């Protein structure tokens, strides 16, 4: 080797060392950023094409992700309230909570009264409006008398002076109907279910629930409070719901999996190396290439992304099995050419093979970045940069660090070597099975069952799901994944459209297609509606006031108020500014949003039974959209899957074309066909096992190509097959199968499916790669003799 080449190699060696050390220092300095990995599974999904709608849903869901509902139950209302208040006091010490609210009936009532009372001549419940329109002022007054005669008259008497028609109390009652399971005890609103009383705490976090520190602090505070309360109050149950618990559990599972999979992968790979090469140096250098791969992956990804996702890090553990491949080929070459072996000659021999292998694998991973799933962009960059790091470690570090005169590779005739040559012959003899495999593939593709449900990406833990369902049942919360969005040019425009549409919703309610609905206009009528109410009132007063009977006048002119409901002009309406700035109206801000001059309001159906009815109701209305978020995500996933299928086909064609220049048509087709058949065979096995096929499986098709093609490339590059080449391929396959096989044990559905596909695909690629020679009709030499 010339002096220039030697100097160049030294420069690259040190440059790479400096890069690795710098990257390590950077990662050490930003270790908190790495610890704060994102665990929100939905952040892996793409943004909606309808940006405005998506933003609105995102804001609504962002506000709800910080909310936590805690139900404290007991057998008696008194114990329930005492336990609830004690729990509240205990968790209020936790600084991660921005606020903790109880359901105090009187407080809410007083807040609403103080907001609405000044507008008693502008706000009116539907019943009063109906009475005025259909029957006149005297019928409306009769309604008041009926209320005053009832056992609940005490609630109405104070309104008589200014509001003899009881507009405000009846308006509040109609806006907040008391549900059957609600009871008021000592001013607190409790929920009752199956002879158990529930005290409600609504807690808002001051930061994202996906922040790991927040999760730790809040869960610790909640657990301590729960233990305290249960000691004091027997029969107390605490039921918690909110995104925080799902995020924390997801985090726990992912971190456990990362460490389990990571350690298992490394241990498995190193044991395999030890078994095959029977020496420490390959072990240590193998570990070095893995570390270089992981450091490169973490470093480059940190530069591109603010936060890495736990799914990326979990997936990254599979990189271990892939990145060791280049080191394996390096050590195996030493075995083939142990006499007068040198690193530079070694690299000359294996470089085309490992370079093509690395190139196709990187290309396959980068192809993942072509589709719009943000999560896959991370996985693509992470994996590609990891493979480059491992490849460069072999290329730049190994020649300097792997000194043949200090090592005796004792690769004797172990059982592994004896068996692997017999195995190769056996596999090569199975070429007749190709036809059978093709038949299986065709049959499976015809019977494939594709499911694009979001459940396939993520299935929440049963206990958390049960808690969520219980809270939903008892608290009767709306389902934020199903909503209606109304657009308009102003808040007034949106409120008017909402009021109009609420007439349709009322009809759907009467037809029992839904239980109820939550609409902003119920609490903040439009100015047009307020004007209409006032005009109706004045008209009826002018028509009928002089014709009232003595009994009716007795109520109408209570407290000698000679002119009830007349307003001084100009009238002060209940405006959105007044409403949203009030303590009561403040909580409704999340239901209206403005973007680029357009306004959106959200109407939430409660207890929706017939989705088709709602879809039909909005069918001809451009300004009202019904969104089923879950279906929307599933539709997105379907689109992604279709795009991924096309990308996969394109990648396969591209790689074939690139290989054409080196290997000609027959060989190129043979190189690509083996991983293609293997991938489809893997899919067929899962179809025959009656698995639901989803986007995770389709994504794995690209990876099977990228990793499985390495074996056929090496066979194509080798002039003769000998034990050590075949052992290198076998070890590569085993390490990859080990890594992805472990991924198939993940609890995260998406990763599990991905791991299953790659495990099977790479497995089949290995088993079928001897058939490369049959497809390529290439003559080859078996040289499985000793001392080769």
């Amino acid at each position, binding site marked *: 080797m010339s002096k220039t080449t030697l100097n160049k190699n030294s420069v690259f060696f040190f440059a790479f060392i400096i890069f690795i050390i710098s990257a390590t220092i950077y990662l050490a300095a930003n270790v908190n950023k790495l610890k704060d990995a994102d665990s929100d599974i939905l952040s892996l999904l793409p943004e909606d094409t309808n940006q405005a709608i998506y933003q609105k849903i995102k804001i609504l869901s962002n506000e709800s992700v910080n909310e936590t509902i805690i139900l404290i139950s007991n057998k008696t209302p008194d114990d329930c309230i005492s336990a609830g208040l004690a729990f509240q006091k205990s968790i209020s010490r936790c600084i991660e909570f921005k606020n903790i609210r109880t359901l105090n009936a009187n407080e809410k009532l007083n807040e609403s009264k103080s907001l609405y009372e000044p507008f008693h001549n502008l706000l009116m419940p539907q019943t009063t409006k109906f009475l005025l329109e259909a029957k006149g002022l005297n019928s409306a007054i009769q*309604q008041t008398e009926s209320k005053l005669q009832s056992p609940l008259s005490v609630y109405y008497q104070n309104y008589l002076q200014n509001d003899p028609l009881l507009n405000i109390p009846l308006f509040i009652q109609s806006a907040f109907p008391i549900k059957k399971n609600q009871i008021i005890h000592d001013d607190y609103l409790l929920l009752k279910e199956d002879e158990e009383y529930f005290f409600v705490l609504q807690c808002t976090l001051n930061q994202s629930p996906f922040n790991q520190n927040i999760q730790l602090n809040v869960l610790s505070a909640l657990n301590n409070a729960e233990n305290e309360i249960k000691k004091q109050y027997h029969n107390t149950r605490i039921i918690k719901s909110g995104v925080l618990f799902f995020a924390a559990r997801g985090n726990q599972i992912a971190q456990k999996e990362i460490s389990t999979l990571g350690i298992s992968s490394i241990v498995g790979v190193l044991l395999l190396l030890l078994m095959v090469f029977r020496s420490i140096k390959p072990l240590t250098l193998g570990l070095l290439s893995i570390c270089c791969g992981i450091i490169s992956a973490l470093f480059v990804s940190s530069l591109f992304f603010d936060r890495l996702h736990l799914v990326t890090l979990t997936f990254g553990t599979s990189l271990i099995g892939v990145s060791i491949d280049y080191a394996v080929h390096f050590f195996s070459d030493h075995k083939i050419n142990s006499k007068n072996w040198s690193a530079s000659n070694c690299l000359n021999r294996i470089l085309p093979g490992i370079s093509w292998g690395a190139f196709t694998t990187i290309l396959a991973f980068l192809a993942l970045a072509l589709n719009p799933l943000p999560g896959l962009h991370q996985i693509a960059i992470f994996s590609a940069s990891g493979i480059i790091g491992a490849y460069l470690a072999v290329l730049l570090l190994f020649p300097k660090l792997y000194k043949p005169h200090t090592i005796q590779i004792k690769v004797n005739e172990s059982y592994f070597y004896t068996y692997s040559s017999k195995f190769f012959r056996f596999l090569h003899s199975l070429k007749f099975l190709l036809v059978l495999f093709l038949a299986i593939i065709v049959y499976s593709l015809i019977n494939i069952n594709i499911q694009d449900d979001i459940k396939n990406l993520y299935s929440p833990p049963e206990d958390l799901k049960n808690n969520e369902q219980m809270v939903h049942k008892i608290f009767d919360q709306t389902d934020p994944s199903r909503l209606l969005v109304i657009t308009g040019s102003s808040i007034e425009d949106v409120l008017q459209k909402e009021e109009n549409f609420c007439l349709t919703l009322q009809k759907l309610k009467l037809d029992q297609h839904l239980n109820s609905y939550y609409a902003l206009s119920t609490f903040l009528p439009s100015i047009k509606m307020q004007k209409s109410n006032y005009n109706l009132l004045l008209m009826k007063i002018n028509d009928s006031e002089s014709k009232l009977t003595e009994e009716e006048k007795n109520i109408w002119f209570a407290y000698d108020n000679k002119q009830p409901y007349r307003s001084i002009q100009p009238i002060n309406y209940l405006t959105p500014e007044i409403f949203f700035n009030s303590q009561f109206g403040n909580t409704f801000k999340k239901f209206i949003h403005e973007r680029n001059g357009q306004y959106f309001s959200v109407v939430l159906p409660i207890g929706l039974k017939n989705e088709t009815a709602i879809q039909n109701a909005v069918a001809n209305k451009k300004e009202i959209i019904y969104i089923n978020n879950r279906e929307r995500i599933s539709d997105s996933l379907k689109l992604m899957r279709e795009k991924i299928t096309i990308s996969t086909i394109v990648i396969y064609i591209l790689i074939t074309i690139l290989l054409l220049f080196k290997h000609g048509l027959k060989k190129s087709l043979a190189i690509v066909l083996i991983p293609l058949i293997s991938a489809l065979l893997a899919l067929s096995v899962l179809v025959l096992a009656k698995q639901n096929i989803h986007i995770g499986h389709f994504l794995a098709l690209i990876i099977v190509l990228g990793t499985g093609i390495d074996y056929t490339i090496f066979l194509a590059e080798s002039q003769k097959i000998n034990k050590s080449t075949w052992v290198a391929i076998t070890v590569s396959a085993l390490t990859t199968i080990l890594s992805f096989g472990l991924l198939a044990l993940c609890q995260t559905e998406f990763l599990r499916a991905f791991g299953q596909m790659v495990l099977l695909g790479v497995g089949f690629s290995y088993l079928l790669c001897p058939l490369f020679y049959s497809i390529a009709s290439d003559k080859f030499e078996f040289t499985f003799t000793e001392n080769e």
Partner: protein
Amino acid sequence: MKVWPIYLILAILSLLLAQKVNSDDTNNDLFKKKQIDDNTIQELKDIAKIFSDTTLVRTKFIQTKLIKGLKKPLVSEGNFLFAQNKGLFFETLKPFEQLTVLTPKNLIQKDSAGIVSVITSDAHPALKNSVTTFLSVFSGESEILLKQFQVYCEISQNNWQIGLIPKGKSSGNEFIVRITFSGDKFLKTINIDEKEGNTTTIQFMDHQTTPLELSKNEQNYFEQK
């Protein structure tokens, strides 16, 4: 003309009127008496027995409500029914038709247009307490009364009076100053005095204890939804 006789007549009239107010306000005498305790509880139990022996009673009623701010009282008339283990209802016929049904769990109201509204008593503490109180009196359940109220009792010849003052500030009772029940063989009058100075008086007359079975119509009243 001499004016002093006019003033004398006016003064006498005033005195007479004051006497009438005082004699109508016999309730005050009741509440000056000793509160029921363990020694005098038998009197309460004797009255309670009158009620507990009555499984079903039908009467006419007149309700008079004096509400602050209204110049005239609100008066309604109609039919009343109490049935053990079911509840009670007021079927108002004048000045307009209305049905009010009280069961241990619900207040059901049906207005003259036929619109029915159901309110669970758990959701309204004031309602819950009224329901509990009324049904306890009508059922003769003295223990419940003693728990929630300071109870005053007087029996004289064939007449009796029970007075109730809410104990402490239990939810729903904060509006009530006191309640008085009076009667002889049957309950004749209920007076409710509220904190704002409002009062409700319900008078029962034409008591009938037969037939013992509820008619179909009466059954339907309790089953309104």
